[in-house]
């Protein structure tokens, strides 16, 4: 039927990811680094702009450190499960650790005056700032983050670079 043909031929680019990958890595900084480099290469190859790459890298670094350190307590036997999808206009990533989870609302505001000099607690805040969406599952051991790419990197909007 002509209608079906037309439906089939309709481009699917907006709904299916260009790249989708799932990996499990040990709770190890070097493994996490390798994965981060791999994701950066994927983003660079798709010509994602520098600022969005910086944002994703930073959020990813914080999320993986949280998973290794706080989630899996540096236990090398525990794994981190990562799934990411790259779409033409956005990047999604889900990171799950094998830990007991946590309640993100328990993390004190690091910018409150009394917390400003505490050396910890800024990772989650940076993730929220640099990604468009950061959500935890009920247990608190899976974080899902999404980054919408800026359509045209407008140099007047952000000073240099």
């Amino acid at each position: 039927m002509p209608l079906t043909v037309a439906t089939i031929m309709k481009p699917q680019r907006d709904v299916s990811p260009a790249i989708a990958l799932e990996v499990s890595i040990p709770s190890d900084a070097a493994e996490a680094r390798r994965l981060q480099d791999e994701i950066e290469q994927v983003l660079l190859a798709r010509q994602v702009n520098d600022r969005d790459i910086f944002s994703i890298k930073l959020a990813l670094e914080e999320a993986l450190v949280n998973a290794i350190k706080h989630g899996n307590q540096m236990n090398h036997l525990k794994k981190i499960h990562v799934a990411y999808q790259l779409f033409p206009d956005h990047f999604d990533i889900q990171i799950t650790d094998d830990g007991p989870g946590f309640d993100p609302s328990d993390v004190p505001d690091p910018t409150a005056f009394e917390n400003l000099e505490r050396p910890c607690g800024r990772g989650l805040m940076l993730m929220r700032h640099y990604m468009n969406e950061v959500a935890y599952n009920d247990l608190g051991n899976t974080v899902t983050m999404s980054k919408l790419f800026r359509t045209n990197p407008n140099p007047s909007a952000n000073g240099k670079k």
Partner: protein
Amino acid sequence: MSSQPRRRRLEVEQIGDVTVVNFVDRKILDDQNIQIIGDQLFGLVENEGFRKLLLNFGNVEYLSSAALGKLITLNKKLHTAGGRLILCNIDPQILEVFEITKLDKVFNIQKEEQAALQAF
């Protein structure tokens, strides 16, 4: 290649009475790496007795919140010892990290090294 614990991560130079520190690494990431950098910075205050520290971030493209934690601790150690810490030459993207976390209010941040030297 991931473990090089003995490598020096800082380049230290004395300009007048100010100790100017440049970072060897372009990315200040990884727990182990940050630990080493932190220890070497603390050593400048605790072992070598320097009191005016200027950290030049000219080489640094990237740092994480764990690195910010070390800088906060360094700042406290210097204050306790009656010293001063100034940061300079921070890439605009990294400066934004300081601003988001309001650490631009905690640290004395100067644009250029020359201005920073005069700010002590």
